């Protein structure tokens, strides 16, 4: 569905030193610098796949999405989405995709969202019956009935985001580019939007690329992740496999019923943390079930949870590795 080969986007930016002197200097002589926002990226995404795009701010995630949705002209390389060259902005291409940017809106600010939906219906050439059915479905899934007739500028951020989502998906695109779709939303609303995206993907076999600062978005939705750093891909593959290779152990958290001496606990596994009744062990992946059974049998356990180390840490490890390799 999506094919990207050696995609590059280089910008030239004028730089200015701070202050008045800097302004004067740059007025007469501009300092030009080339920024390689995307620097030779290649990947393929199959129909129906949901892929998480991870990377720090400025890593090139959004620039890539903008090239894939036809907003930006690539400096070099090739991109094909659903068989189209995005930059050509062919009508059938634009009807196949959507790009949702958490901070930007397409809804008409001074009018109720419903008016924007009607405009989209006409622009995307959606027949009345289909429009009604889709609206009904989105209204139920996103709980929109009280929101649709309010002026957009009077909506809360969460309400507005739900309307943006509905407006962006009204034409039932087959390819979704989601750039920080949950930014600034509270946890409930994040979960809501996540569930909606998952449902949409299921129902329409839509292909999804998602960038997010909230790891929970990515872990909940995407099996596969692509990690970018400084315009290059440093990891592309299965999220679960990444966890296994980069973190060979799991974290086992226990709550005890009564205090147990540290020395007794150390016999089971290496202790990460011990505070009163709460213990955290680090246990090799292969031994998790055996150890858990043993702990439960031999210690006064009130509660037990087994977790992967926070994914932020794992991604952080990836970055340090990648940068170390570059420096070698």
């Amino acid at each position, binding site marked *: 569905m999506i094919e990207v080969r050696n995609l590059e986007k280089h910008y030239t930016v004028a730089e200015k030193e701070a202050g008045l002197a800097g302004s004067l200097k740059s007025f007469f002589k501009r300092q030009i610098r080339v920024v390689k926002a995307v620097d030779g990226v290649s990947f393929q995404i199959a129909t129906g796949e949901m892929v998480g795009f991870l990377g720090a701010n400025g890593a090139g995630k959004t620039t890539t999405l903008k090239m894939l949705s036809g*907003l*930006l*002209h690539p400096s070099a390389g090739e991109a094909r989405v659903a068989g189209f060259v995005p930059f050509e902005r062919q009508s059938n291409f634009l009807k196949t995709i959507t790009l949702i*940017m958490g901070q930007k809106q397409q809804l*008409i600010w001074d009018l109720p969202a419903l008016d924007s939906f009607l405009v989209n219906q006409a*622009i995307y050439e959606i*027949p009345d019956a289909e429009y009604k059915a889709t609206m009904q479905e989105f209204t139920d899934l996103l709980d929109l009935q009280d929101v649709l007739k309010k002026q957009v500028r009077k909506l809360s951020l969460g309400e507005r985001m739900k309307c943006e989502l509905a407006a962006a998906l009204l034409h039932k695109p087959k390819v979704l580019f989601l750039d920080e779709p949950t930014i600034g939303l509270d946890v409930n609303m994040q979960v809501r939007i996540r569930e909606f995206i998952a449902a949409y993907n299921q129902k329409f076999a839509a292909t999804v690329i998602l960038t997010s600062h909230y790891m929970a978005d990515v872990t909940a939705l995407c099996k596969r992740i692509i990690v970018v750093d400084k315009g290059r891909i440093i990891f592309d593959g299965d999220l679960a496999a990444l966890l296994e290779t980069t973190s060979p152990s799991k974290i086992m958290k226990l709550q005890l019923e009564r205090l147990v001496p540290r020395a007794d606990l150390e016999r089971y596994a290496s202790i990460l943390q011990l505070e009163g009744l709460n213990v955290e062990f680090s246990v090799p992946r292969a031994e998790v079930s055996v150890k858990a059974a043993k702990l439960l049998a031999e210690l006064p356990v009130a509660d037990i949870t087994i977790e992967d180390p926070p994914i932020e840490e794992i991604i952080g490890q990836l970055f340090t590795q990648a940068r170390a390799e570059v420096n070698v």
Partner: protein
Amino acid sequence: MNSQPMSPFENTWRKFKALFGAWLAHMTVYRAEILIWMLSGTIPLIMLAVWIGQAQAAGGTVGGFSASDFAAYFLAAWLSGQMIVAWVAWEIDFAIRQGTFSSKLLRPINPFWEYFMQHITERFVRGPFILAVVALGTLLIPGTRLVASAGHLLVYILAIILAFAIRFLIAYCIGLLCFWLENATALDELYFVLSIMLSGSFAPLDFYPAWLRPILEFLPFPYIVYYPAQILIGRLPWSEIARVLLVQCVWLAIIFVLFSWLWKAGRRHYGAVGA
């Protein structure tokens, strides 16, 4: 799913209707603002008073224009000025710098048509006010003949549509410069000042220095206010009217080529900042 596929014509008509409806709703939210904007285009009305004063002081006519000639000319010039108003340079400038232009580029319609419909719709909101002012002016100054004949009115409508298209496309081109420049509105201001001075809003071009006239003929300005106004009030022979329409078409073609080039080149240059 697609119960009844629609013809291309039907689809276009639906888009036209939807954009018209949305913008009309939007404009009615801002109707007071539109009235205020109209007041900012009142120079011909002020000049009307000035020149009538001159005519009366000179004993009836100035350069062959009587008070009612001036009234007819300036009312027609004001009407024309109102019909060709275009602020699209500001819209594009804002959209490109704020990043909202990106969401327009994502839709399967050229943003041009959205802006175009926005302006057309606004003309409908402005229309009743314009007619009221013109009617009032005609009544207040005795002997004013604003419309020479039904034929002149029809040709005027054609000429003013062409004039609007020229002004709109020029403004659009200025707006597109924002793909390269930080800010294009300063250029539109410059255009606005030139246009007020050179389009015939201050005085009929008959009063301009003889050396300036031939130069003006080669600029677009006279063809968007002065000549349409002259057509409406019947001061041009039909052969001259034909020439004016032809020159308008030539200008439109030139600016359209420029617009196409700027659009193509600008999109390649677009940085889609902020969004």
